[in-house]
Protein backbone atom coordinates (compact mmCIF):
# COMPACT_ATOMS: atom_id res chain seq x y z
CA UNK A 1 0.00 0.00 0.00
CA UNK A 2 2.88 2.38 0.75
CA UNK A 3 4.13 1.81 -2.78
CA UNK A 4 0.84 2.80 -4.34
CA UNK A 5 0.59 5.93 -2.17
CA UNK A 6 4.07 6.95 -3.35
CA UNK A 7 3.00 6.38 -6.95
CA UNK A 8 -0.04 8.61 -6.41
CA UNK A 9 2.17 11.37 -4.96
CA UNK A 10 4.54 11.11 -7.92
CA UNK A 11 1.57 11.25 -10.30
CA UNK A 12 0.30 14.40 -8.55
CA UNK A 13 3.66 16.11 -9.04
CA UNK A 14 3.67 14.97 -12.67
CA UNK A 15 0.12 16.29 -13.17
CA UNK A 16 0.94 19.64 -11.57
CA UNK A 17 3.94 20.01 -13.88
CA UNK A 18 2.35 18.91 -17.15
CA UNK A 19 -0.10 20.69 -19.38
CA UNK A 20 -0.11 23.35 -22.10
CA UNK A 21 2.60 25.07 -20.05
CA UNK A 22 5.21 22.76 -18.56
CA UNK A 23 6.65 23.63 -15.13
CA UNK A 24 9.84 21.95 -14.02
CA UNK A 25 9.95 20.44 -10.50
CA UNK A 26 11.99 23.41 -9.25
CA UNK A 27 9.55 25.92 -10.73
CA UNK A 28 6.71 23.94 -9.25
CA UNK A 29 8.27 23.90 -5.82
CA UNK A 30 9.01 27.62 -6.03
CA UNK A 31 5.40 28.41 -6.97
CA UNK A 32 3.96 26.17 -4.27
CA UNK A 33 6.12 27.71 -1.55
CA UNK A 34 6.08 31.33 -2.84
CA UNK A 35 2.98 31.78 -5.05
CA UNK A 36 3.50 35.53 -5.29
CA UNK A 37 6.88 35.00 -7.04
CA UNK A 38 5.08 33.85 -10.22
CA UNK A 39 1.40 34.90 -10.25
CA UNK A 40 0.71 33.35 -13.67
CA UNK A 41 2.12 29.99 -12.64
CA UNK A 42 0.32 30.24 -9.30
CA UNK A 43 -2.99 30.85 -11.08
CA UNK A 44 -2.44 27.88 -13.40
CA UNK A 45 -1.36 25.54 -10.63
CA UNK A 46 -3.75 26.51 -7.85
CA UNK A 47 -6.87 27.52 -9.75
CA UNK A 48 -6.76 25.31 -12.83
CA UNK A 49 -4.62 22.22 -12.30
CA UNK A 50 -5.02 21.58 -8.58
CA UNK A 51 -8.84 21.38 -8.53
CA UNK A 52 -8.71 19.23 -11.63
CA UNK A 53 -6.17 16.90 -10.02
CA UNK A 54 -8.28 16.63 -6.87
CA UNK A 55 -11.30 15.97 -9.07
CA UNK A 56 -9.48 13.18 -10.93
CA UNK A 57 -8.36 11.57 -7.67
CA UNK A 58 -11.86 11.70 -6.20
CA UNK A 59 -13.62 10.46 -9.34
CA UNK A 60 -11.13 7.64 -9.92
CA UNK A 61 -11.21 6.50 -6.30
CA UNK A 62 -15.00 6.71 -6.04
CA UNK A 63 -15.72 4.82 -9.25
CA UNK A 64 -13.22 2.11 -8.33
CA UNK A 65 -14.69 1.67 -4.83
CA UNK A 66 -18.22 1.59 -6.19
CA UNK A 67 -17.18 -1.01 -8.77
CA UNK A 68 -15.40 -3.12 -6.15
CA UNK A 69 -18.47 -3.03 -3.88
CA UNK A 70 -20.91 -3.91 -6.64
CA UNK A 71 -18.75 -6.82 -7.81
CA UNK A 72 -18.78 -8.17 -4.24
CA UNK A 73 -22.42 -7.62 -3.46
CA UNK A 74 -23.65 -8.98 -6.80
CA UNK A 75 -20.96 -11.74 -6.69
CA UNK A 76 -20.31 -11.05 -10.34
CA UNK A 77 -16.91 -9.83 -11.60
CA UNK A 78 -18.44 -8.32 -14.75
CA UNK A 79 -20.52 -5.76 -12.90
CA UNK A 80 -19.60 -2.06 -13.02
CA UNK A 81 -20.95 0.93 -11.03
CA UNK A 82 -23.49 1.78 -13.73
CA UNK A 83 -25.15 -1.67 -13.64
CA UNK A 84 -28.20 -0.23 -11.90
CA UNK A 85 -28.62 2.60 -14.38
CA UNK A 86 -27.02 5.50 -12.48
CA UNK A 87 -24.78 6.62 -15.36
CA UNK A 88 -27.54 6.67 -17.96
CA UNK A 89 -29.90 8.31 -15.49
CA UNK A 90 -27.33 11.00 -14.74
CA UNK A 91 -26.64 11.50 -18.46
CA UNK A 92 -30.38 11.85 -19.00
CA UNK A 93 -30.62 14.45 -16.25
CA UNK A 94 -27.66 16.37 -17.67
CA UNK A 95 -29.10 16.25 -21.21
CA UNK A 96 -32.40 17.62 -19.93
CA UNK A 97 -30.61 20.44 -18.10
CA UNK A 98 -28.64 21.37 -21.24
CA UNK A 99 -31.85 21.41 -23.28
CA UNK A 100 -33.50 23.65 -20.67
CA UNK A 101 -30.53 26.02 -20.83
CA UNK A 102 -29.27 25.49 -17.27
CA UNK A 103 -25.74 26.46 -16.33
CA UNK A 104 -23.10 24.07 -15.00
CA UNK A 105 -24.51 24.01 -11.47
CA UNK A 106 -28.00 23.18 -12.69
CA UNK A 107 -26.65 20.51 -15.04
CA UNK A 108 -24.75 18.85 -12.22
CA UNK A 109 -27.76 18.97 -9.92
CA UNK A 110 -30.07 17.42 -12.51
CA UNK A 111 -27.43 14.82 -13.36
CA UNK A 112 -27.32 13.78 -9.72
CA UNK A 113 -31.11 13.68 -9.45
CA UNK A 114 -31.33 11.68 -12.70
CA UNK A 115 -28.84 9.14 -11.38
CA UNK A 116 -30.69 8.69 -8.10
CA UNK A 117 -34.05 8.37 -9.87
CA UNK A 118 -32.67 5.70 -12.20
CA UNK A 119 -31.37 3.59 -9.30
CA UNK A 120 -34.60 4.16 -7.38
CA UNK A 121 -36.58 2.89 -10.37
CA UNK A 122 -34.30 -0.14 -10.64
CA UNK A 123 -34.77 -1.09 -6.99
CA UNK A 124 -38.52 -0.46 -7.22
CA UNK A 125 -38.82 -2.56 -10.38
CA UNK A 126 -36.95 -5.42 -8.73
CA UNK A 127 -39.38 -5.27 -5.79
CA UNK A 128 -42.42 -5.19 -8.10
CA UNK A 129 -41.18 -8.32 -9.88
CA UNK A 130 -41.05 -9.74 -6.36
CA UNK A 131 -38.17 -12.12 -6.69
CA UNK A 132 -35.27 -12.34 -4.30
CA UNK A 133 -31.64 -12.35 -5.27
CA UNK A 134 -29.16 -10.19 -7.07
CA UNK A 135 -29.91 -11.33 -10.62
CA UNK A 136 -33.29 -9.58 -10.65
CA UNK A 137 -31.60 -6.31 -9.61
CA UNK A 138 -29.13 -6.61 -12.47
CA UNK A 139 -31.93 -7.36 -14.93
CA UNK A 140 -33.98 -4.43 -13.62
CA UNK A 141 -30.87 -2.24 -14.03
CA UNK A 142 -30.55 -3.32 -17.65
CA UNK A 143 -34.22 -2.44 -18.24
CA UNK A 144 -33.95 1.01 -16.65
CA UNK A 145 -30.62 1.72 -18.41
CA UNK A 146 -32.30 0.82 -21.69
CA UNK A 147 -35.16 3.17 -20.94
CA UNK A 148 -32.78 5.98 -20.01
CA UNK A 149 -30.77 5.42 -23.19
CA UNK A 150 -33.97 5.79 -25.20
CA UNK A 151 -34.75 9.00 -23.28
CA UNK A 152 -31.25 10.35 -23.99
CA UNK A 153 -31.74 9.47 -27.67
CA UNK A 154 -34.96 11.47 -27.72
CA UNK A 155 -33.33 14.45 -25.99
CA UNK A 156 -30.41 14.36 -28.45
CA UNK A 157 -32.87 14.17 -31.35
CA UNK A 158 -34.66 17.31 -30.15
CA UNK A 159 -31.49 19.21 -29.18
CA UNK A 160 -30.08 22.05 -31.26
CA UNK A 161 -27.34 20.40 -33.32
CA UNK A 162 -25.09 23.48 -33.17
CA UNK A 163 -25.27 24.56 -29.53
CA UNK A 164 -26.81 21.83 -27.40
CA UNK A 165 -26.01 18.47 -29.00
CA UNK A 166 -22.21 18.84 -28.72
CA UNK A 167 -22.58 19.69 -25.00
CA UNK A 168 -24.69 16.59 -24.40
CA UNK A 169 -22.27 14.34 -26.27
CA UNK A 170 -19.27 15.88 -24.50
CA UNK A 171 -20.97 15.31 -21.13
CA UNK A 172 -21.53 11.65 -22.00
CA UNK A 173 -17.87 11.19 -22.89
CA UNK A 174 -16.62 12.61 -19.58
CA UNK A 175 -14.27 15.50 -18.81
CA UNK A 176 -12.77 17.26 -15.82
CA UNK A 177 -12.20 20.53 -17.74
CA UNK A 178 -14.83 22.50 -15.83
CA UNK A 179 -14.01 21.25 -12.34
CA UNK A 180 -13.31 23.91 -9.73
CA UNK A 181 -13.19 23.96 -5.93
CA UNK A 182 -16.86 24.93 -5.58
CA UNK A 183 -17.97 21.84 -7.57
CA UNK A 184 -15.74 19.63 -5.47
CA UNK A 185 -17.04 21.04 -2.20
CA UNK A 186 -20.63 20.59 -3.43
CA UNK A 187 -20.25 16.85 -4.01
CA UNK A 188 -17.73 16.12 -1.26
CA UNK A 189 -20.36 15.24 1.40
CA UNK A 190 -21.80 12.56 -0.93
CA UNK A 191 -18.40 11.05 -1.52
CA UNK A 192 -17.54 11.11 2.18
CA UNK A 193 -20.82 9.42 3.16
CA UNK A 194 -20.46 6.78 0.45
CA UNK A 195 -16.82 6.08 1.32
CA UNK A 196 -17.41 5.81 5.06
CA UNK A 197 -20.36 3.45 4.54
CA UNK A 198 -18.34 1.12 2.31
CA UNK A 199 -15.33 1.13 4.62
CA UNK A 200 -17.54 0.26 7.59
CA UNK A 201 -19.08 -2.63 5.64
CA UNK A 202 -15.82 -3.86 4.06
CA UNK A 203 -15.76 -7.19 5.93
CA UNK A 204 -19.42 -7.85 5.17
CA UNK A 205 -18.64 -7.12 1.50
CA UNK A 206 -16.21 -10.05 1.62
CA UNK A 207 -18.84 -12.31 3.18
CA UNK A 208 -21.52 -11.17 0.70
CA UNK A 209 -19.21 -12.02 -2.21
CA UNK A 210 -19.50 -15.70 -1.23
CA UNK A 211 -23.24 -15.81 -1.89
CA UNK A 212 -26.50 -14.74 -0.28
CA UNK A 213 -27.20 -18.05 1.43
CA UNK A 214 -23.86 -18.25 3.18
CA UNK A 215 -23.97 -14.55 4.15
CA UNK A 216 -27.42 -15.02 5.69
CA UNK A 217 -26.18 -18.03 7.65
CA UNK A 218 -23.31 -15.92 9.02
CA UNK A 219 -25.90 -13.60 10.55
CA UNK A 220 -25.91 -10.85 7.91
CA UNK A 221 -29.19 -9.12 7.03
CA UNK A 222 -28.54 -9.41 3.33
CA UNK A 223 -31.52 -7.35 2.11
CA UNK A 224 -30.76 -4.37 4.34
CA UNK A 225 -26.99 -4.39 3.90
CA UNK A 226 -27.23 -4.82 0.13
CA UNK A 227 -29.50 -1.77 0.06
CA UNK A 228 -27.00 0.26 2.13
CA UNK A 229 -24.18 -0.75 -0.20
CA UNK A 230 -26.24 0.15 -3.27
CA UNK A 231 -27.09 3.55 -1.77
CA UNK A 232 -23.46 4.22 -0.78
CA UNK A 233 -22.14 3.18 -4.20
CA UNK A 234 -24.85 5.22 -5.93
CA UNK A 235 -23.82 8.30 -3.92
CA UNK A 236 -20.25 7.75 -5.08
CA UNK A 237 -21.16 7.15 -8.72
CA UNK A 238 -23.79 9.88 -9.01
CA UNK A 239 -21.49 12.32 -7.24
CA UNK A 240 -18.66 11.61 -9.67
CA UNK A 241 -20.95 11.89 -12.70
CA UNK A 242 -21.90 15.37 -11.46
CA UNK A 243 -18.26 16.33 -11.49
CA UNK A 244 -16.97 14.67 -14.64
CA UNK A 245 -19.83 13.25 -16.67
CA UNK A 246 -19.67 9.55 -17.59
CA UNK A 247 -16.26 7.93 -17.27
CA UNK A 248 -16.29 4.29 -18.28
CA UNK A 249 -14.13 1.26 -17.48
CA UNK A 250 -12.60 2.55 -14.25
CA UNK A 251 -15.19 0.89 -12.00
CA UNK A 252 -15.01 -2.38 -13.94
CA UNK A 253 -11.28 -2.86 -14.48
CA UNK A 254 -9.57 -1.33 -11.42
CA UNK A 255 -11.11 -3.74 -8.84
CA UNK A 256 -9.82 -6.67 -10.93
CA UNK A 257 -6.29 -5.25 -10.82
CA UNK A 258 -6.64 -4.85 -7.05
CA UNK A 259 -7.77 -8.49 -6.72
CA UNK A 260 -4.84 -9.68 -8.82
CA UNK A 261 -2.47 -7.90 -6.45
CA UNK A 262 -3.94 -8.69 -3.00
CA UNK A 263 -6.52 -11.47 -3.48
CA UNK A 264 -10.27 -11.47 -3.07
CA UNK A 265 -10.88 -9.82 0.30
CA UNK A 266 -12.69 -6.48 0.34
CA UNK A 267 -10.76 -5.51 3.48
CA UNK A 268 -7.78 -5.10 1.14
CA UNK A 269 -9.28 -4.68 -2.32
CA UNK A 270 -11.55 -1.76 -1.36
CA UNK A 271 -8.82 0.67 -0.21
CA UNK A 272 -6.40 -0.55 -2.90
CA UNK A 273 -9.07 -0.06 -5.58
CA UNK A 274 -9.51 3.53 -4.35
CA UNK A 275 -5.81 4.34 -4.70
CA UNK A 276 -5.42 2.51 -8.01
CA UNK A 277 -8.53 4.22 -9.42
CA UNK A 278 -7.26 7.62 -8.30
CA UNK A 279 -3.84 6.97 -9.84
CA UNK A 280 -5.28 5.65 -13.10
CA UNK A 281 -7.69 8.51 -13.70
CA UNK A 282 -5.13 11.14 -12.71
CA UNK A 283 -2.69 9.80 -15.31
CA UNK A 284 -5.44 9.52 -17.93
CA UNK A 285 -6.69 13.06 -17.28
CA UNK A 286 -3.15 14.45 -17.41
CA UNK A 287 -2.69 12.90 -20.85
CA UNK A 288 -6.20 13.98 -21.89
CA UNK A 289 -5.34 17.67 -21.37
CA UNK A 290 -1.72 17.47 -22.49
CA UNK A 291 -1.65 15.33 -25.61
CA UNK A 292 -3.34 17.75 -27.96
CA UNK A 293 -4.51 21.34 -28.25
CA UNK A 294 -8.10 20.28 -27.69
CA UNK A 295 -9.03 18.13 -24.70
CA UNK A 296 -9.65 14.45 -25.30
CA UNK A 297 -12.78 13.24 -23.46
CA UNK A 298 -11.92 10.87 -20.64
CA UNK A 299 -14.09 7.91 -21.71
CA UNK A 300 -12.23 7.71 -25.02
CA UNK A 301 -8.90 7.25 -23.26
CA UNK A 302 -10.24 5.01 -20.47
CA UNK A 303 -11.87 2.86 -23.15
CA UNK A 304 -8.73 2.52 -25.25
CA UNK A 305 -6.63 1.72 -22.17
CA UNK A 306 -9.27 -0.20 -20.21
CA UNK A 307 -10.35 -2.72 -22.85
CA UNK A 308 -6.93 -4.29 -23.58
CA UNK A 309 -6.15 -4.15 -19.86
CA UNK A 310 -9.34 -6.08 -19.11
CA UNK A 311 -8.50 -8.68 -21.77
CA UNK A 312 -5.07 -9.08 -20.18
CA UNK A 313 -6.64 -9.55 -16.73
CA UNK A 314 -9.09 -12.15 -18.05
CA UNK A 315 -6.26 -14.08 -19.71
CA UNK A 316 -4.03 -13.86 -16.62
CA UNK A 317 -6.81 -15.06 -14.33
CA UNK A 318 -7.48 -18.04 -16.58
CA UNK A 319 -3.78 -18.92 -16.58
CA UNK A 320 -3.67 -18.63 -12.78
CA UNK A 321 -6.62 -20.98 -12.39
CA UNK A 322 -4.93 -23.54 -14.64
Amino acid sequence: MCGIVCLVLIAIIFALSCGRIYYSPSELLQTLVHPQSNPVAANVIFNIRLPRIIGALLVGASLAMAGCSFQNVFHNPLVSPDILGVSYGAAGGAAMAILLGYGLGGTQALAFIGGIIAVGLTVALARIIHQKGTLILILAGIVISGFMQALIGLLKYTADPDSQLPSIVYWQLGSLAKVDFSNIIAILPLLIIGTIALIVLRWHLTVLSLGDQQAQLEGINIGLERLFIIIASTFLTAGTVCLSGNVGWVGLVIPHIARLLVGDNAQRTLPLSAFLGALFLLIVDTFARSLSVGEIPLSILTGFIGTPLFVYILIKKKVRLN
Partner: protein
Amino acid sequence: MNILNVHQLAFSYSPSKTVLKKISFSLRAGEVFTILGPNGIGKSTLLHCLLGILPVNQGRIEVAGKDIQTVNQRFLAQQVAYVPQDYHVNSSIAVIDYLLTGRTPYLSLFQTPQHKDIMLAEKYLKEFKLIALRDRSFSSLSGGQQQLIAIIRALLQQPQLLILDEPMAALDLSRQYELLQLIKKLNRQQIAVILTTHLPDHALMLQAKVGLLNLNGTLEVGNSAQLLTKEKLEDLYQVPLDLEYMPNLHRYTCQIKL
Protein backbone atom coordinates in the same frame (compact mmCIF):
# COMPACT_ATOMS: atom_id res chain seq x y z
CA MET B 1 -32.84 -27.91 27.16
CA ASN B 2 -32.94 -29.36 23.67
CA ILE B 3 -30.76 -27.55 21.14
CA LEU B 4 -33.36 -28.17 18.44
CA ASN B 5 -37.11 -28.74 18.55
CA VAL B 6 -39.07 -29.36 15.37
CA HIS B 7 -42.84 -29.60 15.67
CA GLN B 8 -45.17 -30.61 12.80
CA LEU B 9 -43.01 -29.07 10.08
CA ALA B 10 -44.55 -29.09 6.61
CA PHE B 11 -43.16 -27.64 3.40
CA SER B 12 -44.18 -27.63 -0.24
CA TYR B 13 -42.68 -25.88 -3.25
CA SER B 14 -46.14 -25.57 -4.80
CA PRO B 15 -49.67 -26.65 -3.83
CA SER B 16 -49.24 -29.82 -5.88
CA LYS B 17 -45.74 -30.66 -4.66
CA THR B 18 -45.58 -31.38 -0.94
CA VAL B 19 -42.05 -32.33 -0.01
CA LEU B 20 -42.17 -32.54 3.79
CA LYS B 21 -45.14 -33.53 5.95
CA LYS B 22 -45.72 -33.36 9.71
CA ILE B 23 -42.07 -33.71 10.67
CA SER B 24 -41.34 -33.64 14.39
CA PHE B 25 -38.18 -34.44 16.31
CA SER B 26 -35.87 -33.01 18.98
CA LEU B 27 -32.15 -32.99 19.40
CA ARG B 28 -30.22 -32.74 22.67
CA ALA B 29 -26.81 -31.18 23.09
CA GLY B 30 -24.15 -33.52 21.75
CA GLU B 31 -26.60 -35.79 19.96
CA VAL B 32 -25.84 -37.04 16.45
CA PHE B 33 -28.75 -37.41 14.04
CA THR B 34 -28.31 -39.09 10.66
CA ILE B 35 -31.03 -38.47 8.08
CA LEU B 36 -31.22 -41.12 5.39
CA GLY B 37 -33.04 -41.10 2.11
CA PRO B 38 -32.54 -41.59 -1.61
CA ASN B 39 -31.40 -38.75 -3.90
CA GLY B 40 -33.99 -36.04 -4.51
CA ILE B 41 -36.26 -37.04 -1.62
CA GLY B 42 -35.96 -33.68 0.17
CA LYS B 43 -33.08 -34.07 2.61
CA SER B 44 -31.48 -30.75 1.64
CA THR B 45 -34.93 -29.12 1.64
CA LEU B 46 -35.44 -30.29 5.23
CA LEU B 47 -32.09 -28.83 6.25
CA HIS B 48 -32.89 -25.52 4.52
CA CYS B 49 -36.17 -25.38 6.49
CA LEU B 50 -34.30 -26.03 9.75
CA LEU B 51 -31.90 -23.18 8.90
CA GLY B 52 -34.66 -20.73 8.00
CA ILE B 53 -33.49 -20.48 4.37
CA LEU B 54 -36.85 -21.85 3.21
CA PRO B 55 -40.02 -20.64 4.95
CA VAL B 56 -42.12 -23.53 6.25
CA ASN B 57 -45.81 -23.75 5.40
CA GLN B 58 -46.69 -25.14 8.80
CA GLY B 59 -45.02 -26.00 12.06
CA ARG B 60 -42.51 -24.53 14.42
CA ILE B 61 -38.73 -24.80 14.63
CA GLU B 62 -36.87 -23.75 17.77
CA VAL B 63 -33.13 -23.45 18.18
CA ALA B 64 -31.90 -23.10 21.79
CA GLY B 65 -35.49 -22.41 22.79
CA LYS B 66 -36.05 -19.59 20.28
CA ASP B 67 -38.36 -19.65 17.26
CA ILE B 68 -36.19 -19.30 14.15
CA GLN B 69 -38.87 -17.15 12.43
CA THR B 70 -38.41 -14.38 15.00
CA VAL B 71 -34.91 -14.93 16.36
CA ASN B 72 -32.06 -12.53 15.61
CA GLN B 73 -30.01 -13.79 12.63
CA ARG B 74 -26.71 -13.24 14.42
CA PHE B 75 -27.83 -15.29 17.44
CA LEU B 76 -28.91 -18.09 15.11
CA ALA B 77 -25.53 -18.00 13.33
CA GLN B 78 -23.79 -18.40 16.70
CA GLN B 79 -25.89 -21.48 17.46
CA VAL B 80 -26.06 -23.24 14.12
CA ALA B 81 -23.46 -23.75 11.40
CA TYR B 82 -24.09 -25.33 8.03
CA VAL B 83 -21.93 -27.07 5.46
CA PRO B 84 -23.87 -27.27 2.20
CA GLN B 85 -23.59 -30.00 -0.34
CA ASP B 86 -22.55 -27.47 -2.96
CA TYR B 87 -20.16 -24.72 -1.79
CA HIS B 88 -18.98 -23.48 -5.13
CA VAL B 89 -17.37 -20.06 -4.66
CA ASN B 90 -17.09 -17.71 -7.61
CA SER B 91 -14.06 -15.86 -6.34
CA SER B 92 -10.33 -16.26 -5.80
CA ILE B 93 -10.61 -15.72 -2.06
CA ALA B 94 -7.72 -17.15 -0.05
CA VAL B 95 -8.42 -20.13 2.22
CA ILE B 96 -7.61 -18.17 5.36
CA ASP B 97 -10.00 -15.35 4.40
CA TYR B 98 -12.70 -17.88 3.51
CA LEU B 99 -12.29 -19.49 6.93
CA LEU B 100 -12.42 -16.14 8.71
CA THR B 101 -15.88 -15.46 7.28
CA GLY B 102 -16.96 -18.14 9.77
CA ARG B 103 -16.14 -15.67 12.57
CA THR B 104 -18.56 -13.05 11.22
CA PRO B 105 -21.31 -13.84 13.78
CA TYR B 106 -18.89 -12.76 16.52
CA LEU B 107 -17.82 -9.50 14.87
CA SER B 108 -19.70 -6.22 15.18
CA LEU B 109 -20.65 -4.26 12.05
CA PHE B 110 -17.45 -2.19 12.16
CA GLN B 111 -15.10 -5.02 13.03
CA THR B 112 -12.89 -7.15 10.85
CA PRO B 113 -11.36 -10.46 11.99
CA GLN B 114 -8.92 -9.95 14.84
CA HIS B 115 -5.61 -11.63 15.57
CA LYS B 116 -7.33 -14.16 17.85
CA ASP B 117 -9.68 -15.16 15.01
CA ILE B 118 -6.73 -15.73 12.69
CA MET B 119 -4.96 -17.80 15.37
CA LEU B 120 -8.08 -19.93 15.82
CA ALA B 121 -8.38 -20.53 12.07
CA GLU B 122 -4.71 -21.52 11.86
CA LYS B 123 -5.13 -23.85 14.85
CA TYR B 124 -7.91 -25.71 13.04
CA LEU B 125 -5.87 -25.85 9.83
CA LYS B 126 -2.99 -27.45 11.75
CA GLU B 127 -5.32 -29.96 13.46
CA PHE B 128 -6.62 -31.06 10.07
CA LYS B 129 -3.07 -31.03 8.61
CA LEU B 130 -4.13 -28.45 6.04
CA ILE B 131 -1.95 -25.52 7.10
CA ALA B 132 -0.13 -25.67 3.74
CA LEU B 133 -3.37 -24.51 2.09
CA ARG B 134 -3.60 -21.33 4.19
CA ASP B 135 -2.78 -18.82 1.46
CA ARG B 136 -4.02 -20.80 -1.54
CA SER B 137 -7.05 -19.68 -3.50
CA PHE B 138 -10.15 -21.60 -2.37
CA SER B 139 -11.26 -22.19 -5.95
CA SER B 140 -7.93 -23.89 -6.78
CA LEU B 141 -8.47 -26.68 -4.19
CA SER B 142 -9.75 -30.15 -5.00
CA GLY B 143 -13.38 -31.00 -4.17
CA GLY B 144 -12.39 -32.94 -1.08
CA GLN B 145 -10.12 -30.17 0.17
CA GLN B 146 -12.87 -27.60 -0.39
CA GLN B 147 -15.28 -29.72 1.62
CA LEU B 148 -12.89 -29.99 4.54
CA ILE B 149 -12.19 -26.27 4.47
CA ALA B 150 -15.97 -25.65 4.43
CA ILE B 151 -16.31 -27.88 7.51
CA ILE B 152 -13.53 -25.99 9.31
CA ARG B 153 -15.25 -22.74 8.46
CA ALA B 154 -18.44 -24.07 10.05
CA LEU B 155 -16.50 -25.13 13.16
CA LEU B 156 -15.10 -21.59 13.43
CA GLN B 157 -18.66 -20.44 14.06
CA GLN B 158 -18.36 -22.39 17.33
CA PRO B 159 -21.92 -23.65 16.97
CA GLN B 160 -24.03 -25.73 19.32
CA LEU B 161 -25.46 -27.51 16.28
CA LEU B 162 -23.55 -28.43 13.15
CA ILE B 163 -25.57 -29.35 10.06
CA LEU B 164 -23.78 -31.25 7.29
CA ASP B 165 -25.42 -31.93 3.94
CA GLU B 166 -23.95 -35.07 2.34
CA PRO B 167 -20.54 -34.42 3.93
CA MET B 168 -18.97 -37.65 2.71
CA ALA B 169 -19.85 -37.09 -0.94
CA ALA B 170 -16.48 -35.75 -2.12
CA LEU B 171 -14.21 -37.33 0.50
CA ASP B 172 -11.86 -40.25 0.02
CA LEU B 173 -11.78 -43.07 2.60
CA SER B 174 -9.13 -41.50 4.81
CA ARG B 175 -10.98 -38.19 4.91
CA GLN B 176 -14.29 -39.97 5.57
CA TYR B 177 -12.61 -41.68 8.50
CA GLU B 178 -11.34 -38.32 9.79
CA LEU B 179 -14.80 -36.81 9.47
CA LEU B 180 -16.45 -39.66 11.33
CA GLN B 181 -13.84 -39.31 14.09
CA LEU B 182 -14.57 -35.57 14.16
CA ILE B 183 -18.30 -36.21 14.58
CA LYS B 184 -17.57 -38.51 17.53
CA LYS B 185 -15.30 -35.82 18.99
CA LEU B 186 -18.01 -33.18 18.62
CA ASN B 187 -20.38 -35.60 20.27
CA ARG B 188 -18.08 -35.71 23.31
CA GLN B 189 -17.84 -31.87 23.27
CA GLN B 190 -21.66 -31.69 23.47
CA ILE B 191 -22.02 -30.23 19.99
CA ALA B 192 -25.03 -31.71 18.22
CA VAL B 193 -24.64 -32.85 14.63
CA ILE B 194 -27.21 -33.45 11.92
CA LEU B 195 -25.94 -35.04 8.76
CA THR B 196 -27.71 -36.28 5.70
CA THR B 197 -26.51 -39.19 3.64
CA HIS B 198 -27.89 -41.54 1.04
CA LEU B 199 -25.62 -44.38 2.19
CA PRO B 200 -26.94 -46.54 5.07
CA ASP B 201 -23.39 -47.58 5.99
CA HIS B 202 -22.64 -44.10 7.34
CA ALA B 203 -25.64 -44.33 9.68
CA LEU B 204 -24.62 -47.89 10.66
CA MET B 205 -21.11 -46.64 11.49
CA LEU B 206 -22.34 -43.82 13.70
CA GLN B 207 -25.01 -45.94 15.45
CA ALA B 208 -26.80 -42.80 16.57
CA LYS B 209 -30.30 -41.36 16.22
CA VAL B 210 -31.62 -42.02 12.72
CA GLY B 211 -34.31 -40.44 10.57
CA LEU B 212 -35.70 -42.09 7.45
CA LEU B 213 -37.14 -39.52 5.04
CA ASN B 214 -39.80 -41.39 3.12
CA LEU B 215 -41.27 -40.87 -0.34
CA ASN B 216 -44.50 -39.54 1.20
CA GLY B 217 -42.55 -36.69 2.91
CA THR B 218 -42.73 -38.02 6.45
CA LEU B 219 -39.70 -38.56 8.67
CA GLU B 220 -39.52 -41.72 10.74
CA VAL B 221 -37.28 -41.12 13.76
CA GLY B 222 -35.72 -43.74 16.00
CA ASN B 223 -32.44 -45.39 16.91
CA SER B 224 -30.32 -47.36 14.46
CA ALA B 225 -31.44 -50.76 15.84
CA GLN B 226 -35.10 -49.87 15.27
CA LEU B 227 -34.89 -48.27 11.85
CA LEU B 228 -31.84 -49.69 10.10
CA THR B 229 -33.46 -53.02 9.26
CA LYS B 230 -33.43 -54.83 5.93
CA GLU B 231 -37.19 -54.31 5.42
CA LYS B 232 -37.20 -50.61 6.19
CA LEU B 233 -34.13 -49.86 4.08
CA GLU B 234 -35.46 -51.84 1.11
CA ASP B 235 -38.73 -49.95 1.43
CA LEU B 236 -36.87 -46.64 1.55
CA TYR B 237 -34.53 -47.25 -1.41
CA GLN B 238 -36.74 -49.61 -3.42
CA VAL B 239 -33.81 -51.96 -4.11
CA PRO B 240 -32.93 -55.44 -2.73
CA LEU B 241 -30.44 -55.08 0.13
CA ASP B 242 -28.62 -57.29 2.55
CA LEU B 243 -27.52 -56.43 6.07
CA GLU B 244 -24.55 -58.40 7.25
CA TYR B 245 -23.22 -58.34 10.80
CA MET B 246 -19.44 -57.88 10.97
CA PRO B 247 -18.20 -59.21 14.31
CA ASN B 248 -14.81 -57.50 14.02
CA LEU B 249 -16.56 -54.13 13.50
CA HIS B 250 -19.36 -54.85 16.00
CA ARG B 251 -21.96 -53.55 13.59
CA TYR B 252 -23.90 -54.29 10.46
CA THR B 253 -22.96 -53.27 6.93
CA CYS B 254 -25.39 -52.75 4.08
CA GLN B 255 -24.84 -54.24 0.64
CA ILE B 256 -26.90 -54.06 -2.57
CA LYS B 257 -28.06 -57.53 -3.64
CA LEU B 258 -27.18 -57.80 -7.31
